[in-house]
């Protein structure tokens, strides 16, 4: 019986996320995502998919789902950075596509 209780407790412990995000972490991730997206918008390089991820992060944060909020915010940050990178890269490579 004791073994079963220990086993159940162990399983319950293992089923928890290894690194559950805290509210502060989610908040920081959301702030970073918003800053990255602002930069992308200023560069006229933003993607609609980044906006979707950011919106999902805000909703999850409002619902106190810190893990979800952090994951979505991290995704938004990554996409915003990629969009700026794309824009910078295209400043020179677009010439390769010109019909001559």
């Amino acid at each position, binding site marked *: 019986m004791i073994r079963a209780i220990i086993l159940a407790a162990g399983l319950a412990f293992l089923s928890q996320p290894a690194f559950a995000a805290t509210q502060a972490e989610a908040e920081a991730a959301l702030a970073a995502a918003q800053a990255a997206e602002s930069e992308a*918008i200023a560069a006229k390089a*933003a993607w*609609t*998919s980044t906006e979707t991820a950011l919106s999902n992060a805000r909703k999850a944060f409002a619902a106190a789902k810190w893990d979800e909020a952090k994951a979505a915010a991290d995704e938004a940050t990554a996409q915003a950075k990629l969009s700026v990178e*794309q*824009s910078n890269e295209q400043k020179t490579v677009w010439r390769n*596509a*010109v*019909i001559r």
Partner: protein
Amino acid sequence: MVPRNLKSAFYLVGEARPGSAAAPGRAWRHWCSRSAIALNLVCTLLLVSAAAKAADKSEPETDRKAFQAFFFAKFPHVAKDDFGNGPYAVNEAMRKQWKEIMEFPPYEIALDEGHAEWEKPFANGKHYADCFDNKGEGVRQTYPRFVAETGQVETLEGAINRCRVENGEKPLDPMTGTMASLTAAMAESSRGKPFAITIPDDPRALAAYERGKEFFYSRKGQLGVSCASCHMSPAGERMRGDILAPALGILAAMPIYRSDWGSMGTSIRRISTCSSQTRALPLKADDEDYRNLEYFLSYMSNGIPIVGPGTRP
């Protein structure tokens, strides 16, 4: 040319020191030889760089000829004057459907509204006609225009809104509604007139053209596609249920009644929709980038007749 110049420079340098103690020396000749090589390299690099810059600089008329030749070669059976009809010019099945649609053109209501609005005086008694060359009759093919006073490109929608504001009226939504109706009426009066976009002798106008060209060929959005990715080589091909329109003459049918919208829309509405389709966040309707894009695209279509208002799936 470069070696000759360098050669003379080398000898001049060499001969400037004949009386010096080092002149006949081996070290001096060695130094001169190394200097000449270095100078040669620098000059070659400068020339290569200048040539590269010259190749990058836009020559709009050269661009237009190459652009149009590309489509004439790609669609040898499509008449030049037909390119403004977009997918209906390059796909026989769609053309048949279009002919049936055109028995009762879906833009007729907007056209009537546009004519009525055009005739309606502003509160100050003036009319739209007072703001345009030739009272606005048959001028659509000359838009967008570069305006020297602002140093920027002005679209037809921009000119209509400027006219309204200058006469004490509120600007209209440049994408749809009354604006689309007004531009429909103006386009109708230009039907058959070929695009005649000018780039004045002003470096700002050429810069605007160049930025429009850059926008057209730059990959954007999460899907990483440019306007050219869909409307150059793949033109006439299917993208899911749609036939991709050739970029040549793509604005000649504007404004359009688009079945997908269920309403009329201006060029900017279409371009904005394209942005969304690439998953790029659309810019503001009157953003300079969109105006420059229109400028470039319209210039590329010089010689293609206006067929607007039009209809699209």
